[in-house]
């Protein structure tokens, strides 16, 4: 009996999130790590003025570094004992797997970003108005969707390949650069830092939405053939 894509997506997402809850990797390790990355930047830059200007950028940089770790882990679960092979043999709908893994990545990333953004607001003393908040939320949601899709797509691509741990960041980094830039600009607009107004942020959110759409669609269409031997 063929199961519907949404049933499979749900089962995969629930499984991944349950594994995350068990191992508490995000809360106990990735979160402190990305917090540390932000502190580290502060060290490397060593200038208060610069920091306030680039608070938005730092949040997204830290998010992207965490993305690498999360994607790698998300697929390590599948390949470490050959579970992905079993799923392929069983003909489990790859679109369902793609969506499920994207959803779980999305949830984990959002949780992370909320904490990072709050930290930035507090640490770097940025201001946030009502209009800014709406912009920020839209930006976070669309940027995260894009990151989750692209992460799952490339995670599937490199799953099982030797040297996967290192190839993944290499492939992902140039692709997520547009997300980094657009999300940074939109966040700056939301924070009205560097003298930008909130309305200037919306075009960037549009870029993020297009990105998410392209990779969401690309992933749905290609994931099946990517995980194929």
């Amino acid at each position, binding site marked *: 009996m063929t199961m519907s894509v949404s049933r499979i997506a749900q089962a995969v997402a629930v499984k991944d999130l349950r594994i995350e809850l068990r191992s508490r990797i995000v809360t106990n390790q990735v979160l402190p790590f990305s917090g540390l990355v932000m502190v580290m930047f502060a060290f490397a830059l060593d200038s208060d003025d610069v920091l306030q200007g680039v608070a938005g950028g730092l949040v997204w940089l830290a998010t992207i570094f965490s993305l690498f770790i999360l994607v790698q882990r998300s697929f390590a679960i599948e390949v470490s004992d050959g579970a992905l092979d079993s799923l392929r043999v069983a003909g489990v709908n790859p679109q369902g797997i793609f969506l499920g893994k994207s959803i779980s990545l999305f949830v984990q990333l959002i949780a992370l970003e909320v904490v990072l953004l709050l930290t930035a607001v507090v640490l770097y003393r940025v201001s946030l108005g009502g209009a800014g908040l709406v912009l920020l939320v839209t930006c976070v949601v669309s940027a995260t969707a894009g990151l989750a899709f692209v992460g799952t*797509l490339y995670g599937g*691509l*490199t799953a099982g*390949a*030797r*040297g996967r741990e290192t*190839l993944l960041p*290499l*492939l992902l*980094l*140039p*692709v997520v*650069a*547009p997300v980094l830039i657009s999300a940074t600009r939109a966040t700056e607009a939301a924070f009205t830092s560097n003298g930008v107004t909130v309305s200037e942020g919306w075009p960037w959110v549009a870029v993020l939405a297009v990105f998410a759409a*392209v*990779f969401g669609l*690309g992933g749905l269409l*290609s994931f099946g*053939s*990517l995980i*194929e*031997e």
Partner: protein
Amino acid sequence: MTTTELPAIKGVGTQATRLYGVLALVALGWVFVGGLFFTPEDVVQGDAVRIMYVHVPTAWTAYLAFIVTGVASACWLLGKKHSMGFDRVAGASAEVGVAFMALTLISGSLWGRITWGTFWVWDPRLTTTAFLFVTYLGYLAVRGLGGSPQQRARRSSVVALLAVLEIPLVHFSVVLWRSLHQEASVLSPDGDIKMDGIMLFTLLFGVFGFSVLFAWLVSHRQRIMAMHDAQRASALEVAMVDRLQEASS
């Protein structure tokens, strides 16, 4: 142990590739001579402007190469037979494109050193170009991942189709972000060309010459890859014989 006959190799040239070769040689010869001696100095940049005759054509040819990679990948994906010929063209074209993009980066840095006084600035055009370059390095890394040829073709064609979307980003980066780099002056949206006749002529010849050079390189590389595949097939033949001996011993 039997030795399997390898097809006799007399080079990978054909009538057509020889024609391309000659054409490329002639065109690039003109670019060399014309670019260095016949074209005038620029009012502002002086002799440095001559780098343009390499810089711009290599950039555009790299775009062309990546687009060819994308199209060939699409043909592989959509084709019923998944003909490996398309995959080889895609790979060969990406290799040549990466080489040309490297030339763009190098010539651009040298040019920048002269006109801006620096090899590199964090300018949108330059940065996006660097990203494009690395993206295709990644594409080549994916091709090198191993696995069956089909798997390689599947993976790399998906990457190629996603990567080609970055080209508009590079091209329009000068418009999207305010940039230090030259705005599109030859391929500008309003269509009028502001350039001295012979300079334009030489530039266009450069574009032509590098494109033909690209075609020449790709057709050779692609045939070398085909021969490599054939060689692998005959290596398999040998290994099969080995296996049979192992089985009957």
